């Protein structure tokens, strides 16, 4: 995936999302919003549904661009196909959210593969978050802080800082983070969806 020879020139849009390039992000809206809106409205949704869907997909793209996701196909086609797939999943109901649709359009196998990869990643992050929310409030608070960056140092909070922010001792925080993380990953890896998605 990281082979630069395979990179599509539309990667500039992912870079724009990652870097907050306003003019290119506006172009993404200008060139793609109406197609997605028309599709959603033609398939039982409203313009507001289309806006939610479009923004949801762009947010995923933003996060995955930050994680190094690279484009090997035209951006507009990719974006539309992902929106389409997600909208059909909405129509099919939340129960089927972790199941992939068949190849709905006659798109290239390479694009289909990249869409699958993209959606797998989106579902993996959702699975993780789903399990995170099953943890107790103390675990959620401590883990969130332990992953956060300190705005000044641009480094994640130290255990001492987490202890200070939560009013706990250093030892308690160190032990608690380890316990919570283990519990969280146990929940994630034992979920049947984990095998489907990895």
């Amino acid at each position, binding site marked *: 995936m990281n082979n630069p020879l395979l990179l599509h020139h539309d990667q500039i849009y992912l870079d724009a999302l990652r870097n907050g390039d306003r003019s290119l992000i506006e172009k993404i809206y200008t060139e793609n919003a109406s197609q997605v809106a028309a599709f959603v409205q033609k398939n039982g949704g*409203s313009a507001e549904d289309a806006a939610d869907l479009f923004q949801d997909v762009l947010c995923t793209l933003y996060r995955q661009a930050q*994680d190094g996701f690279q484009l090997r196909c035209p951006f507009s086609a990719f974006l539309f196909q992902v929106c389409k797939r997600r909208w059909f999943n909405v129509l099919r109901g939340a129960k089927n959210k972790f199941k992939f649709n068949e190849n709905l359009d006659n798109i290239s196998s390479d694009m289909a593969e990249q869409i699958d990869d993209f959606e797998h990643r989106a579902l993996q992050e959702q699975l993780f978050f789903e399990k995170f929310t099953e943890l107790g409030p103390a675990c959620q608070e401590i883990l969130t802080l332990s992953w956060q960056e300190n705005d000044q140092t641009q480094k*994640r909070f130290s255990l001492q800082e987490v202890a200070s922010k939560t009013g706990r001792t250093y030892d308690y925080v160190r032990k608690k983070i380890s316990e919570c993380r283990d519990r969280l990953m146990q929940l994630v890896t034992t979920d049947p969806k984990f095998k489907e998605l990895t």
Partner: protein
Amino acid sequence: MEDQYEVFDQYIAGELDAENLQQFEQALTQDEQLRKRFDVYRLGTRYTLWQKSPNDQDKAFLSQFSQLRQSTAAFNQNNGTKQAEDQLSKRLRLLLFVLAALVGLLLLVWALRAAFQPEAAEELIIAEQYNPLPVPSTLSPSTQDSMSAAFSAYRRQDFGKAIEIFTNFPKTDERFAEAQLFAAYAYFEQKNYPAALEAYEQVILTKDPRYKSNAEWNQLLAALVSSSADKKIEQYFQGILNLPTHSYHEATARLYTLWKKEGHVNFK
């Protein structure tokens, strides 16, 4: 690397020293299960922060998206469509109101017509069927007798005078029946229906075949015009209807159908 997930955190945060970094990246390439767990962990922690505690860049990104969403026409067409739908709905409601008003008006017209039509029909029947004899058959054109004087008054529409003379004929007079008949006509013209009914009755009682049918028919009309009791009217109807050879049988049958259909005949 005792705590695997601590290493995950350290790797993501860029805190691993060169040796541990190399060791971990090598492990990722060699251990597929480790790589799968790490992929989910990396993506998951990022997504969790996005959800629970977005950083400044995330917030700026979301703010920008929110503005673009507001200003993108394609995502606001619902409002336009809704307005158009509202306008269409208003027009439809107005149209329905106008249609309902028209229907109401038609119903009102129909009801008024229903109220007035029988009268018109009945008046028509009276106009068509009121059938006084034109001239007394016993009238002698050459002599100036009581019958001539009475008929002369009747023709002048001096019904009071005509009645006075017609009713003066004694029962023993052979012209009694005819005189009573014309007296009844005169009463009818005066709208003195009870007197007309009585005069017709006198004619009928004479059983004079020259005047009896006419008297029975005109008695029925007078009864209808005066809104006599239904029982009495029914009696008059049946008196004619029971005689198929009656000269007014057919007309009576038609009138009877109307009377039955309307429930009553309200002649004015």
